[in-house]
């Protein structure tokens, strides 16, 4: 290693949340260094303060609500925390580049790509217009945008999420800064796109020998790109070290918990494979649906999709955005109607019939939704929410509330929560309540529509365990919809891979994940972050998922 000075030096940085008594520290005395040609990952769950640190480094702390109260930050020897706005502005884009999480909203929708990259040059250099244009095209080529000349004239809404993120990276690197800060840049992307962007960032870091500060919540990503790791929890640095040390021998219990909570791709048939018994509980036959968009564009949401779910079986529907998995789930539950095809539940076709016509059949298929914050009516109390379903099933009020209490116990919630409101609970707790609500209807088939995707990784593991318990206790069949192949492999008996409204591959979970037949499935498996390192025999010392 060279004896070059570190590019970033953070000394006891503290950021306080204004208006809290006693003063709450969003960032509590955090220190670290990043050397050139090194990628440092800040890992933590939501609320850990990792994003706040990134913003502090570039002087972009939100103007209201928080304030810098202690510590210093040095970038290339210059003290950031002592600079005024003008000084910071000279720094941004030239010494430090930053990219953000949501490519959808991070670019000005009214300006072309060319204009937005051009701005960076105009703000800091005296290049001529022709020079700026040429350099911009070069940048786009560097970030591997296909056909840079066309992309220059495009507006953000005309680009895909991955392309927009590449544009952002190009803008951040335009003036060859020595530090690139990436605040969860791949969290909102599809897993295959994520793999590409991660590879790109790593490549750029090596090529230009810059320092990269990468914020993430996914230890799989950490294992793929990090040289050094810093684990954050509630504003504090909990553990730090090289990626080797932290991953293989974490010293803190919290770190261990985070690492273990990362879902593993299960490729051996550890769970007994369930042969799809006859007759199937749910039989989907040739389901199709198309949407007409603006300008006559036709989207084929589902294209003659067929699948079966047997009693007691868990089937995973895995796909990226736009694959049609959610659409299929909503149709099974009756929230959407297909254009053609049939869905047979215990032999009865449930397509095209109203709730009244279906009678008792309707309640036997229930759903748990993705967004824990939108799944519960904010103005209703917990027991009312759960009991109302039971009442519909024909129970008397008293019996219904008793059932609600019982179900809350089953999902691991205290009966004290009965009279409370949803906003008093965390995301994970709300998902448990949502599960209890679904169970109140005594369904035979439970559809989980990305039910754990919005949860922190450690909470996610807990909810998955809960799902495993209840399916045994209540004899449920499940359709588990997710974009995360790892999660599906740990929970499901069979996996169905979907893409653009079609089924690409389906089979036993272990087979699909261990020896995928189709190219797309192989791409999905290959794109899983941390696959190489995290699933190596030396690392997996405990059974797949804990707690």
């Amino acid at each position, binding site marked *: 290693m060279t004896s070059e000075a570190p590019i970033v030096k953070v000394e006891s940085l503290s950021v306080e949340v204004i208006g809290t008594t006693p003063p709450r520290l969003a960032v509590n005395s955090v220190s670290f260094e990043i050397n050139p040609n090194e990628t440092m990952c800040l890992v933590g769950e939501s609320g850990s303060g990792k994003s706040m640190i990134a913003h502090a480094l570039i002087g972009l702390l939100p103007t209201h609500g928080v304030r810098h109260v202690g510590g210093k930050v040095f970038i290339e020897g210059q003290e950031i925390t002592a600079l005024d706005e003008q000084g910071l502005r000279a720094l941004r884009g030239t010494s430090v580049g930053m990219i953000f999480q949501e490519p959808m909203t991070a670019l000005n929708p009214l300006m072309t790509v060319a204009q937005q990259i051009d701005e960076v040059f105009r703000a800091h250099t005296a290049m001529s217009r022709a020079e700026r244009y040429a350099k911009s095209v070069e940048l786009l080529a560097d970030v591997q945008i296909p056909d840079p000349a066309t992309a220059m004239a495009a507006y953000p809404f005309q680009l895909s999420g991955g392309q927009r993120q590449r544009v952002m990276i190009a803008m951040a690197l335009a003036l060859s800064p020595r530090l690139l800060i990436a605040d969860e840049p791949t969290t909102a992307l599809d897993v295959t796109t994520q793999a590409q962007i991660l590879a790109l960032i790593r490549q750029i870091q090596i090529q230009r020998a810059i320092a990269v500060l990468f914020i993430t919540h996914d230890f799989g990503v950490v294992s793929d790109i990090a040289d050094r790791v810093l684990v954050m929890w509630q504003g504090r640095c909990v553990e730090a070290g090289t990626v080797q040390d932290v991953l293989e021998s974490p010293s803190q219990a919290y770190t261990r918990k985070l690492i273990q909570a990362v879902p593993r791709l299960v490729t051996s048939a550890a769970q007994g494979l369930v042969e799809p018994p006859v007759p199937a509980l749910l039989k989907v036959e040739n389901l199709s649906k198309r949407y007409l968009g603006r300008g006559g564009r036709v989207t084929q949401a589902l294209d003659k999709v067929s699948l079966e779910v047997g009693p007691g079986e868990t089937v995973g529907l895995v796909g990226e955005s736009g694959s049609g998995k959610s659409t299929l789930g909503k149709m099974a539950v009756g929230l959407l109607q297909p254009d053609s095809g049939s869905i047979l539940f215990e032999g009865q076709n449930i397509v095209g019939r109203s709730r009244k016509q279906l009678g008792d059949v309707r309640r036997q298929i229930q759903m748990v*939704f993705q967004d824990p914050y*939108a799944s519960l*009516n*904010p103005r209703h109390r917990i027991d009312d929410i759960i009991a*109302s379903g039971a009442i*519909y099933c024909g129970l008397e009020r008293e019996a219904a509330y008793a059932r609600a209490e019982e179900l809350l116990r089953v999902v691991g919630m205290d009966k004290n929560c009965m009279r409370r*409101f949803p906003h008093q609970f965390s995301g994970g707790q709300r998902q448990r309540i949502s599960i209890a609500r679904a169970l*109140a209807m005594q369904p035979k088939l439970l559809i989980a529509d990305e039910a754990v995707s919005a949860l922190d990784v450690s909470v996610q593991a807990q909810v998955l365990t809960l799902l495993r318990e209840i399916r045994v206790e209540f004899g449920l069949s499940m359709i588990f919809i997710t974009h995360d192949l790892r999660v599906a492999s740990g929970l499901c008996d069979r996996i169905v891979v979907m893409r653009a409204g079609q089924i690409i591959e389906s089979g036993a979970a272990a087979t699909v994940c261990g020896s995928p037949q189709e190219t797309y499935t192989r791409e999905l498996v290959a794109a899983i972050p941390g696959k190489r390192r995290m699933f190596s025999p030396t690392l997996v010392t405990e059974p797949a998922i804990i707690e």
Partner: protein
Amino acid sequence: MKGVFAHYAATKGGLLGLFMLLVVIVMAASAPFLFPAGPWEIVGAPFEPPLSEHLLLGTDMLGRNIAAAIFHGAYVSLLIGLVSTLAAMVIGITLGAVAGYVGGWIDQVLMGLVEFFQTIPSFVLAVVLVAIFNPSLGAIVGAITVVSWPPVARLVRAEFLSMRSREYVQAAWLSGRSDIAIIFKEILPNTLPPIVVAGSMMVATAILLESALSFLGLGDPNLMSWGYIIGASRTVMRQAWWMSFFPGLAIVITVLAINLIGEALNDALNPQLQAVEEGA
């Protein structure tokens, strides 16, 4: 609910607005006691300036008491404002909720209707309606209702549309709740805040509308309203500036009060809702 009141009480604007509105309501309520003879009674010489004898605000061209007119006018303005707003809200909420929840061709027809009414300049339409159906209390209330319901319907429809695809509404549907129960128990309570705020602002607009109509001479001839006094004062402004000044001031105070209340309500209800929905 307690949080809402606390929030509201914390806003100075809201308290000021409430106080001002209270003053106006007291004026309206006390009119028959302070000026039992009514506003049309001649009490003095024409064009007495304010602060002369017992005439606090002077007299008009016929010697009628301006103060009496203002106090009685308060009742008229508030009445018309409230009634027409209520009617417009009922119509707007019903149509908007149906359009937003049911969708389909009902929605298209309703939206076409709303768009049509919003393209026509509302004040001109109100003038035409009152003129054709002959000025009277009923005509004014009717005209104001007709031009006021479209924005409410639009707002309610937008709210219902966004709520309909909310996950807890879908969950309620899965739990077997009937459509009516969903509309009333799931959606409506969560859409109330913006509707309440819109309603309060609408009262202010209704009062402005009514005063403009009265100013043009389209008010009910038996009712003394603030707009009417100002309209009557137009030609004699040089001699009696107080005739136009004080009633106008009354309008400004009333409308300002209602707007302040509306804004304070907005601030008080929204963060509450946001906090509730985001689990803050």
